């Protein structure tokens, strides 16, 4: 009787312990970006398209596609928010269904960058241990440019204040001379 009580107590205590999380089912999704390579100049705008396909036998449920950009050369600071104002898109796919997602991007730093899209489960039921699906990298080469040159603006920038400064000086000189004459 005493053994039975101890066994019951042990089972009860074990049942109170947190159950280890079960591994979530992997996302059966494929992400293909297009184009694979982008060359632009600083300030240039381009559209990256990603085709997301549900390759599994069941509906994907709610999923989130998120665009990210990273510098892959040098130490260029990248703030992805500057590159694209809208970097997340929510969707759900039936088995075999594909959807094309467009990402509006503006290159705001010169250098070599990689853009990629991560697909993850979405919603309050996400446990946090689900796997991610990541697209292949898209190489983004951004050349620097100078849309405006100092040389073009320099004559105006110098001449206008110079002329006005001379006019002011002439007026004060004349007023002073008139005052001294009187």
């Amino acid at each position, binding site marked *: 009787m005493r053994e039975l009580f101890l066994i019951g107590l042990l089972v009860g205590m074990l049942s109170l312990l947190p159950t280890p999380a079960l591994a979530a089912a992997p996302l059966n999704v494929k992400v293909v970006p297009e184009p694979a390579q982008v060359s632009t100049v*600083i*300030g240039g705008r381009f559209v990256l398209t990603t085709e997301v396909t549900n390759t599994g036998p069941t509906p994907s449920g709610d999923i989130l596609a998120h665009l990210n950009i990273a510098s892959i050369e040098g130490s260029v600071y990248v703030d992805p928010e500057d590159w694209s104002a809208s970097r997340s898109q929510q969707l759900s796919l039936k088995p075999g269904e594909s959807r094309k997602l467009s990402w509006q991007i503006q*290159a*705001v730093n010169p250098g070599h960058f990689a853009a990629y899209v991560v697909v993850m489960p979405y919603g309050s039921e996400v446990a946090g241990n689900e796997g991610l699906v990541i697209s292949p990298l898209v190489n983004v080469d951004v050349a*620097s*440019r*100078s*849309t*405006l*040159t*100092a040389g*073009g*603006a*320099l004559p*105006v*920038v*110098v001449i*206008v*204040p110079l002329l*006005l*400064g001379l*006019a*002011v000086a002439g*007026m*004060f000189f004349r*007023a002073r001379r008139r005052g001294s004459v009187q």
Partner: protein
Amino acid sequence: MTVQVAPQPAVGTSQDVRARAEGESGWLVVAEQECRDLWTSGRGLMLLFLFSVLLSAVTYLTSTNQALNFLEQRESVNLVLQFAVAVGVLATLVVSADGISGERERGTLETLLVTPVPRRSIIAGKLIAALSLWFATFLVSIPYVWVLAREVGILGQALVLGLCVGTLVAIGLGCIGLLISAACNSNKTSIAASIFLLLILFAPTQLPSGLPQGWFFEVLLRANPVASGLAYISSLLVEGHSWTQDLSFLITPLLTVIIAGGALILAGPRLVRLTRGENAG
């Protein structure tokens, strides 16, 4: 207006104003006299010189700064034009804020009031003189806008837009400046109140762009005649909207002209007066 008394009878005397006012429209005489005071004293030219130095610095930065160079050239034109309009109209506000309180403080208002010029004409003349500074700053800004806009084909649009919106805002702020000036006994108070008003008008435009800009920001933007005028310029030059698409941005500048101008017309004769303890005595 500096109405000089003997021993310099040639220019700007009350007799001169009186004699000419009898022959011409009073407001024209006052406007001419005020403009002469503003421009021949060197005050207007000095303000223009400082304005050109500021505009040169902004234009040079726009042309050379790598961080700004990623901007579309339209955005650079917009930046310089907005700067020119904002500083130009604010200079108008400061000059008009000196209009009546300055006369009181210098002791010349009494002399002006005894001329046969109606008080509304005095106000109109002073407003026109203050606006002459806005038109002069706009003329100075033309080469700067030209150097940036010539390659993108928006020079004409930028200049017409700057002139129309800037003139509307300048009239409104000029009227406000004159109202403040008429209500203040001291020139210092009038100028300080106007500068404080400038800060109030400019503070919302200086909020970091990263901050969430909800309905309250939209209300602040729309309620501010300077900011909403500049937003209209931006929507046409940068976003390529049509002239009529964002006309609602011009409601506040227009209302400012109507309300402040109406208040000046209605209350002007009572506001332009000597005050006890200053020169009445």
